């Protein structure tokens, strides 16, 4: 595929890996063992799927961040979605189906008769609503800025003439989550590998508050293996030089100001609020919801449903995993009571979840045994 294959070239990978090794050697001399957080769940998945950890110098550790939308969605949201599915046809990204709510998941609710349909594109929900004017249709709008932009476009398309369409939103913003992380004394992160497509919307300037003197290197990288390796290389180079600036290594897509048209559309339909993150808690102004005047498109007000926090599963350490305090194998339930077939927490459900990624694509130690 054009503009994909070139970023997977094995020889170029070897070249970047050898630069990584010499940079790590320099850092070793200064006693630095860098802990890098990959903020975005798609990076988590790409790192696992491409075996990136396997080629990193041993002193470099990658920590998964809070950027897996399914993982940070409160169990109470699932409960509300199940309730909505008793009154409407519900469309959702497939990742959501098996996320445990307080009692049920959407998959178990569907088996019991709830009207739930996984879709690739939210447009499927619009098309259905258009074709079935008598049927209430709800799209489960969860995600970060990458998804928020399409959701705003959806709102624009539905605003006029689709009275049977609404959305149950749990939309979250990356920068406030980073702000919460860096102010948490329990969190130790030396640098951020910043998301590719979230950044396409918000722009590279959005990371300025986290870099600079006293801050951390913030390097934006694409999702292809070479992009990721090169992004890590740039982080190590900054750390070796004692620098901390925003570096855009995905300039083929990300602009300093981001996608302004998308931003304008988002702020036309949505407003910030203090959102609750599963396992992390409430973060100020970290979520977006539909503005009051679009209440008819808001499934909560439309059906009188309220998204409560819900009951998180006992023993699940997803919160610590999402903050990078704990690696998944450190959770006592990991691979025992909690597996992708039988997930206890959301991090084991989504393929972007840190626990699922660790489970499915475990790092291979030199002896061929799991690390």
């Amino acid at each position, binding site marked *: *595929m054009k503009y*994909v294959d070139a970023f*997977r*070239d*094995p020889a170029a*990978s*070897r070249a970047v*890996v050898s630069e990584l090794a010499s940079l790590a050697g320099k850092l070793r001399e200064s006693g630095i063992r860098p802990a890098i957080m990959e903020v975005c769940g798609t990076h988590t998945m790409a790192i*696992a*799927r*491409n*075996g*990136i*950890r*396997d*080629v990193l110098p041993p002193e470099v550790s990658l920590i998964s961040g809070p950027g897996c939308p399914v993982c940070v969605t409160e169990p109470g949201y699932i409960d509300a979605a199940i309730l909505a599915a008793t009154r409407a046809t519900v469309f959702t990204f497939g990742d959501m189906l*098996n996320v445990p709510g307080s009692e049920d998941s959407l998959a178990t609710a569907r088996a019991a008769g709830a009207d739930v349909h996984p879709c*690739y*594109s939210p*447009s*499927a929900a619009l098309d259905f609503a258009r074709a079935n004017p008598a049927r209430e249709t709800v799209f489960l709008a969860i995600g970060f800025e990458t998804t928020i932009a399409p959701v705003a476009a959806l709102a624009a398309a539905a605003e006029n003439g689709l009275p049977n369409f609404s959305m149950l939103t749990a939309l979250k913003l990356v920068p406030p989550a980073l702000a919460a992380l860096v102010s948490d004394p329990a969190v130790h992160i030396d640098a951020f590998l910043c998301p590719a497509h979230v950044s396409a919307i918000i722009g590279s300037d959005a990371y300025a508050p986290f870099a600079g003197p006293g801050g951390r290197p913030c390097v934006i990288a694409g999702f292809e*293996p*070479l992009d990721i*390796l090169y992004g890590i290389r740039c982080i190590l180079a900054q750390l070796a030089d004692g620098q901390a600036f925003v570096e855009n290594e995905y300039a083929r897509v990300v602009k300093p100001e981001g996608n302004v048209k998308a931003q304008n559309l988002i702020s036309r339909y949505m407003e910030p609020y203090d959102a609750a993150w599963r396992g992390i808690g409430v973060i100020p102004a970290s979520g977006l919801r539909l503005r009051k005047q679009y209440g008819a498109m808001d499934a909560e007000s439309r059906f009188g449903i309220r998204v409560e926090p819900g009951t998180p599963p006992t023993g699940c350490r997803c919160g610590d995993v999402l903050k990078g305090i704990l690696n998944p194998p450190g959770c006592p339930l990991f691979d025992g009571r909690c597996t*992708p*077939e039988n997930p206890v927490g959301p991090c084991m459900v989504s*393929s972007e979840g840190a626990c699922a990624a660790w*489970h*499915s*694509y*475990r*790092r*291979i130690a030199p002896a*061929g045994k*799991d690390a």
Partner: protein
Amino acid sequence: MALVQAHCARREGRLKEHGQILLAHGGGGRMSRSLIEAEIAPRFGKGPLKGFPDAASLPDPDGPLVFTTDSFVVQPLEFPGGDIGKLAVHGTVNDICVCGGKPLWLSVGLILEEGLNISLLRRILDSLAAAADECGVTVVTGDTKVVARGQCDGLYINTSGIGRALPGFSLGPEMIRPGDAVLASGPLGDHGMAVLCAREAVLSGTGPMSDTGPVHRLVAAAADMAGAVRFMRDPTRGGVAAVVNEAVHGTPCGVALDEQNIPVSPATRSAAELLGLDILHVASEGRILLFCAPEACDPILTAWKAIPEGRNACRMGTVTADAGSVLLNTLAGGRRLVDMPQGELLPRIC
């Protein structure tokens, strides 16, 4: 003249009424009989099915038999590169072939939904008959049931097949040894992606084409090296990941696959990228994964490449002594585990 017109009107009326399947077509009465006579007999009513006995009498095949069954519920019924009729033949025939059998006889059970369009049914039956001919199997017995609207999704098919075990093959996962080669007979995942794209109405254009097809010629081509072939499977549901994991499960062997050598057609790869699917988890319906002794690798590849369905065959991995572990050497130069697919990755693709 009036008589002729009246007759034509009646015939038209009958055609109209028969434009779709009615519950009465499954009632066992005159309508059932006319459906069988009109649609089944002309296509399959030769050989043992002639006269529609209640059971097929088959000649003694003289030697060990291979027997298998499979049900087909794919949606949509017709997809780029194939349809449920073809698939119902290939699915069962291929299961016989990869067990080292030569397929001989097939049974076909049809479950039709009230309201099914008859011309669609005709197309599917034509395709089923043509596929059976191509594979050299005879449909020797069958059954047709009709269920009320809403109780099945158009049409389901069950096929069972009997084949004769070919001499020379001695296959099984327990035959696999470290150092063995792992071959693929062609690009992987085309069927799963074609069906999925057909279902995602938004994906159109040339798109992936299902690879549904028979593998009997591939097995015959490998038969010269039969003694060196350890194990064969068609990577259907669960894809390569499921087959390879199952093959080495509980054995002292593992497998290392090379991402660089995994054959994938461009459209299938684009679709998988777009939908975020791992190609190793996506089904093929006309391919073989073959484990063989290293010295048999080149002769089998040469033999395969000489026939159209093996044109893009390649070696994509090697058996290791790392018990039960299936690894992928990635393009990035790392390694990662190839896990079994979880859950219903692609429901109703076969």
